[in-house]
């Protein structure tokens, strides 16, 4: 237990060392999570749009009926 508390004390610099590591972890995780979320959300949106889109064959068919 003593070894652990001296580890967290960091020779009196604990108040500077741990916030440094904590900040790095928080910022890096935040950037990573937001990147994963936005990639997923936008790829889902794209999938939906592509599904909604009529297939090429059908579009050509409607164009032909319009032309005739």
């Amino acid at each position, binding site marked *: 237990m003593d070894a652990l508390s001296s*580890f967290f004390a*960091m*020779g*009196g*610099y*604990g108040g*500077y*060392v741990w*916030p*440094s*590591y904590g*900040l*790095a972890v928080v*910022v*890096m995780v*935040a*950037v*990573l999570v937001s*990147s*994963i979320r*936005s*990639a997923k959300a*936008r*790829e889902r*949106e*794209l999938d939906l*749009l*592509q599904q909604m*889109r009529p297939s090429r064959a059908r579009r050509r068919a409607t164009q032909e009926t319009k032309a005739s």
Partner: protein
Amino acid sequence: MHRFANPARFMRIAALVYPWAVGVTILTLGAGLWLGLVGSPADYQQGESVRIMYIHVPSAWMGLFCYVSMAVCSAMALVWKHPLADLMARATAPVGAAFTFICLVTGALWGKPMWGAWWVWDARLTSMLILLFLYLGYMALADAFDDPQRGQKAAAILALVGVVNVPIIKYSVDWWNTLHQPASVVKMGGPSIDKTMLIPLMLMAVGFHAYWVVVLILRTRSEIAAAKVRTLRMAQVHAAGQAE
């Protein structure tokens, strides 16, 4: 659609690289944290506070590395109109800003016990702060226009102009008197920085680069999807207009 010059190849390569980049990030950061926090000795002058170095120094490198990659991508986008280059520049900016921010705050947390000041307006610190503002300006400008291409172009020009700042940061410790230790201390690699400190430092640096690859792939995928969505929506509006 054709303007988004074949992102299919990017997607293929990204899918191959992604799991490796995730693995390297986890392994090197895990090992680097363990060696940095537990396995390395305290500094004979700075005591345990030297452990801030394992975050601060690689973050500073990443701040510069991301900026240079962003500027190279911006140049490619401006000169060759390569659309993927624009998207990758956009994808890198938040990572560079995040690391520059981490570098500045950990620098303050290291400066307080070692110099007695959270912040001094010397050349190294000020030029690093300007780097953060360049990132923020780039991101704001890229999103400031209704037409994303115009925003991209303006932001790319800002990124290129801002490159002047990179050598200023690098050599600020040689050109001006400063509290910040000179590069000789950072690369005291050879004789004076011990292997026990150099190895965790390098592991953290490799880990941060691998993390950058992971985030770059995710954000570029996201940008590609967004660009395709925009094109599809425009085609829909166009088709609706024609049908009427």
